[in-house]
């Protein structure tokens, strides 16, 4: 052994942790190497210093202090201590200041816009609320008609300008405005609500005719207001059951008035449903080379709260104008993954706005009941596309596979376009797929099975809405997990792809 090896072992040697043979080898080296012997002396000196180091004794009254601390460890005293210790920290004071400011902003926001906007995902809520608050603040000091004309835009102009004739849905609001007093603040609030309510009417014939905003801020205000219109529509369907707030009352009013203001050509929900299914059927025959909806550049993902009922009605006009949905915005990957971490209903919308079914990405907090009660599942029939993740089977499993299942695979493989996919399908238990199909059919639904390239089998499931929780429950209990993985799930048939991962055999 050389000096480097020896010096690595000197601590163990000094600690007396070496066996006799190794210790003898170290001693032999030390007798012939003055440098290592000196290093050992240094180590021994160090160890001696550490062991002989003056030890600190606990202060007098330590036990009494411990007992006193135990005595006062009630929850109230703990809370008080924590608060006081936090108060002594500058970082806490900064945090408290920020929290107070945030609370103030939220309180102002809620007092001005009572309803459901704050239930939206964080970014969109904060941005929208800031914009709205700015708009409100900008609108409040306006006094003369000229200033109004300069400082307001879009729907606000329509709401504020005296010459504008009240649309059919307005009389109630007019009465509110008259009885609400003449203060500037109240007028602003009423104007704001009026604007939102007007915009939230499900279908407005005058909406496409609205003059375009002349400056960027006005355009932004238009965008925000149109977003609110959609969200208000959603709130009338989703939150009216949860929050019987004054806003819900006005929504109800609007709902009752909506048919009057809707054009005669507006398709009924049944017609819309037929149209959707027709579009899906057309997509089945889509050529392979055509980009899938999720791969298209204009894909939007909109959270459940932002999908309006009015979208169902506005769909035809929006697809005609070929514009993206007003309440949709392109999301960053971070936003998407944030939503996916907090599963809820998510809508994936095409640029054309034609794909507007509501599909829950995952039941919120694992409760199927909530999916139904929160109104996430609409319309009456739900179309789901499950894309299975094929689990590679080991050779042992291949051998264990029975001849009957091989025959089943061969039957299924007739639908497969390539030999490679036959192998892929063979790795999924065909009995699982059959079991799912049987279950769906037993619940009154239909299943279309398609083997896709890459060894995936896609089940397109049409299921009555009320049976959807049963399906989720069944899949969890019998088949495996439903994974949120829009990245890997190939889209092409449905609005939302859920990975259905089969358990290993």
């Amino acid at each position, binding site marked *: 052994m050389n000096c480097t090896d020896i010096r*690595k072992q000197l*601590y163990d040697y000094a600690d007396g942790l070496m066996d006799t043979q190794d210790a003898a080898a170290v001693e032999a080296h030390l007798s012939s190497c003055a440098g290592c012997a000196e290093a050992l002396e*240094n*180590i021994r*000196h*160090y*160890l001696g*210093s*550490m*062991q*002989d*180091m*003056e*030890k*600190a*004794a*606990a*202060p007098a009254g*330590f*036990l009494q*202090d*411990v*007992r006193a*601390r*135990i005595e006062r*460890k009630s929850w109230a005293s703990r809370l008080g201590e924590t608060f006081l210790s936090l108060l002594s*920290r500058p*970082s806490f004071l900064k945090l408290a200041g920020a929290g107070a400011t945030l609370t103030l902003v939220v309180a102002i926001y809620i007092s001005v816009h009572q309803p459901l906007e704050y239930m939206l995902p964080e970014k969109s809520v904060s941005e929208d609320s800031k914009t709205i608050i700015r708009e409100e603040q900008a609108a409040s000091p306006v006094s003369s008609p000229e200033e109004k004309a300069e400082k307001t835009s879009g729907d606000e102009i329509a709401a504020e300008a005296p010459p504008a004739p009240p649309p059919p849905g307005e009389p109630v609001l007019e009465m509110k405005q008259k009885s609400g007093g003449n203060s500037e603040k109240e007028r602003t609030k009423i104007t704001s609500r009026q604007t939102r309510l007007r915009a939230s009417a499900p279908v407005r014939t005058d909406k496409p005719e609205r003059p375009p905003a002349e400056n960027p801020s006005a355009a932004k205000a238009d965008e925000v207001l149109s977003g609110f219109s959609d969200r208000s529509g959603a709130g009338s369907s989703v939150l009216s059951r949860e929050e019987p707030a004054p806003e819900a009352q006005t929504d109800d009013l609007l709902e009752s008035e909506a048919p009057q203001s809707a054009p005669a050509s507006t398709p009924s929900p049944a017609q819309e449903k037929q149209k959707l299914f027709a579009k899906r059927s057309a997509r089945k025959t889509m050529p392979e080379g055509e980009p899938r909806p999720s791969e298209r550049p204009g894909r939007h993902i909109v959270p459940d709260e932002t999908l309006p009922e009015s979208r169902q009605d506005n769909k035809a006009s929006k697809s005609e104008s070929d514009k993206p949905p007003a309440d949709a915005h392109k999301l960053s990957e971070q936003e998407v993954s944030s939503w996916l971490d907090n599963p809820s209903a998510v809508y994936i919308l095409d640029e054309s706005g034609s794909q507007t079914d509501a599909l829950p990405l995952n039941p919120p907090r694992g409760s199927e009941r909530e999916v139904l009660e929160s109104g996430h599942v609409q319309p009456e029939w739900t179309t789901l596309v499950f894309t299975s993740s094929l689990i590679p089977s080991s050779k042992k499993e291949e051998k264990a596979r029975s001849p009957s299942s091989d025959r089943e695979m061969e039957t299924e493989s007739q639908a497969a376009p390539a030999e490679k996919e036959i192998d892929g399908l063979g790795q999924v238990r065909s009995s699982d797929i059959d079991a799912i199909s049987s279950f769906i059919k037993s619940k009154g639904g239909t299943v279309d099975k398609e083997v896709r390239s890459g060894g995936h089998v896609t089940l397109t499931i049409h299921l009555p809405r009320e049976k959807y929780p049963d399906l989720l429950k069944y899949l969890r209990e019998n088949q495996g997990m439903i994974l949120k993985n829009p990245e890997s799930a190939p889209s092409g048939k449905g609005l939302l792809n859920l990975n259905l991962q089969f358990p290993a055999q």
Partner: protein
Amino acid sequence: MNTDTITDISTDEEDFDWIREFKQGSEQAFNRLVLKHKNRVYNLCFSMLGASDDANDLAQETFVKMYKGLHTFRMEAKLTTWLYRVAVNLCKNRVTSAHFRRKKQSISLESAEEFIPQNKSDDPESNEIRRRQRIAIQECVDALPADQKEVVLLKDMDGLPYEDITGIIKQTLGTVKSRLFRAREKLRHCLEGRV
């Protein structure tokens, strides 16, 4: 080797007896446990933090946790191992807190010198030498990373066997030895010519 670093079977059995009494409702047994272990726990906290008030705070907190946890203590491990683990974790949390870091920057080492030695001799000169040595060691220990600090204090200051240290810091023997070697080398070079 300092006598208070020895943890023989008899002291463990004594601990277990008192724990049994405490479980049967004897508060006096708990007091005896505190009095027996307070200096070791306090010294460990003081060595890790280098500040007497924080050491006192966390040592007390360690025993408060012991009070709450003794009813579920199964006596499968030594009480000292359990106590040290609690104390080390509390100290590590405190060391990494921004509040403590700011405090350490603002407080001079002089305040850390004001500790009460466990064994004070009648010779003032000897006491002064030992005090200076302690300050030098504390300065060097403070410069170590927390993971190396805990290992070197448990091993070289408290004289705990590797088995106990692995149980306290929940690391493998190899990790403990590796950290200990690096810490010792740093300390040895830091203390060269000072002690």
